[in-house]
């Protein structure tokens, strides 16, 4: 393969995250070319005006580039981008690399990886932690798994898009890591909401509780960011509650399969189910607070 600094890279999927990530690759000047594709082609225009190339199909992107990155919204979109006619798979040949940075379940990731390697390509699963702002600022946390050689090759690209990347093992490990981290996050939000509810019910000020939590070993960005919204009972969605509940459900299923007790996550999951039943599924996952008020 070409020397790393002269790689040609492609980017499939220019949503909130993908556009920002592709822009960082373009601005870095580290790659001989950046070729983009999006299902709605007009989304490519801004990046093309900034110096990117565009291609009519994912297959064309892959054919034109050493390594192609994918950033699709969900498993369905990730599979479509790969397996549809003119999809990524159609462009894969010996030596090509595909790095799927979408957040998908392990089965989807494994399926994509197997198809890519069957055609002689290399595959890395690379979901991220962080949303729009970290994507723009190149501060994502990248959880990598799959082909170690390809992972090493794309280190410069990862360094441009993120603040840190991890190599976690064979394909599937990164999907599992995301699930574990999101399980802890979901449980923590549940615990936080119970604390806020108990404070309020006991005649304590929630502002005081937030302040105290923010001063000690428990302080974390999520409490600080979501606390004020909980106090106002307003939950504009950054991470929809229905997705958080889905992640908890998947984590619990993993626990079931492996005989791993997860009583706290199970209790938190019930709260998310209650919140969904209250119609809060599309709100931010902080709306699980409403389950404490039921």
């Amino acid at each position, binding site marked *: 393969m070409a020397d790393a600094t002269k790689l040609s890279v492609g980017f499939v999927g220019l949503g909130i995250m993908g556009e920002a990530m592709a822009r960082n690759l373009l601005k870095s000047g580290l790659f001989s070319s950046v070729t983009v594709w999006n299902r709605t082609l007009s989304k490519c225009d801004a990046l093309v005006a900034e110096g990117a190339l565009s291609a009519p199909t994912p297959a064309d992107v892959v054919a034109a580039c050493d390594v192609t990155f994918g950033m699709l919204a969900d498993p369905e979109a990730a599979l479509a981008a790969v397996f549809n006619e003119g999809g990524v798979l159609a462009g894969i040949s010996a030596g090509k690399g595909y790095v799927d940075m979408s957040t998908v379940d392990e089965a989807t990731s494994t399926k994509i990886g197997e198809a890519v390697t069957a055609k002689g390509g290399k595959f890395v699963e690379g979901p991220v932690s962080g949303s729009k702002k970290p994507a723009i600022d190149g501060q994502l946390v990248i959880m990598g798994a799959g082909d170690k050689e390809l992972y090493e090759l794309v280190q410069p690209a990862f360094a441009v898009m993120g603040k840190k990347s991890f190599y*976690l093992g064979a394909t599937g490990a990164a999907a599992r890591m995301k699930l574990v*981290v999101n399980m802890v*996050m979901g449980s923590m939000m549940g615990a936080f909401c119970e604390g806020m509810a108990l404070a309020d019910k006991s005649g304590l000020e929630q502002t005081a509780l937030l302040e105290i939590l923010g*001063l000690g070993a*428990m302080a974390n960005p999520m409490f600080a960011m979501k606390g004020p919204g909980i106090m106002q009972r307003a939950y504009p969605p950054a991470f929809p509650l229905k997705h958080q509940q889905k992640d908890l459900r998947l984590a619990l299923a*993993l626990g079931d399969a492996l005989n791993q007790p997860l009583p706290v996550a199970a209790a938190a999951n019930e709260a998310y189910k209650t919140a969904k039943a209250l119609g809060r599924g599309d709100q931010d996952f902080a709306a699980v607070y409403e389950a404490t008020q039921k």
Partner: protein
Amino acid sequence: MALLSRAPVPALTRRSGPYTAPPSAPPQFGRHIRHAVAYGPAPFSAAVAAVPRAPASRPLSARPARSALACHAELVVAAPSKTVLGFLGIGIMGVAMTRNLIKAGYQVVVWNRNPDKCKALAEEGAQVAASPREAVAAATYTFAMLSDPEAALHVALRAGDGAVAGLAPGKGYVDVSTVDAATSRTIASAVRAAGAAFLEAPVSGSKGPAEQGKLIFLTAGDEALFTAVSAPLDAMGKAKFFLGAEGAGANMKLVVNMVMGAMMASFAEGLALADKVGLRQQDVIDVIGLGAIAAPMFALKGPAMAKRAYAPAFPLKHQQKDMRLALALGDEVAQPLPTAAAANALYVAARRQGLGDSDFSAVLEAVAEQQAAAGQQ
């Protein structure tokens, strides 16, 4: 930021339970005044300050009747080299806190059930009393740091040589133990009956913060005493809150520790599941440490947990006691707490495994494989 007294609350919004004042009480209001916070910038303060403060929907803990307060003699403001302080309970926390008082220049009289624990402090200049009463009598203001409600009651109220027996007008008793509100009120009554002032002052922070003088005091009770012991509190801590009538500090501490206990249990479940699905626990700790749920507690304790090492900073038995008391508070105010209840069961299981004296992070043992994972590092 100071919050001055709120408007009186209509009777319709009164809660049931121990926090309801008798109908003849004066209008209820509470105050949240945050005094000097010496620590660095709190990034979310601006966001918190920007939240429009909703009118109180229910009264805060009842204030003591005005006449009781008027009985207190004038309280001297504590200052190094001028004020003698007492300290009851020289455990993990007590020894560190006392040391900071001595370093700040106070003369300190200490007492511990097992006098051996006082030896090191005696060599550093503390006087050792033979009983709680003796320490309290020798001091103007006495701090107590006992392990649980039973110990706090016993040390304060035991006949003959308990702390209350040594109190008198002009003195103050600051109970830093973490107890339930009812225990705190019982001690408060006895202290005030002796003519002294009472402050409940449980802390957030364990061994490290205690040693570094970075505790967070969650106080309630007699505000005059809060003001009088401001300097000693600052010698031991980085922040102090006055939250209203006694009960408010105790309850706030329970809420805080309930969140902490559930957070740690959640983290432990994450580490256990990670291990089961072939991920390195240190990778989980590192990924978490870079994201939205990065908390100092995880970074501090995670690596030792990955090695199944649990040197006690905060003993698990005390964490479980706090969860139990928080759940009892939830019962009292009719607040279901399923996540906390699930976490509590894990701490109970860990105690049954004999891990009560280990750090509370040993809750991992309640969810992890019983046999050490081969090659897990």
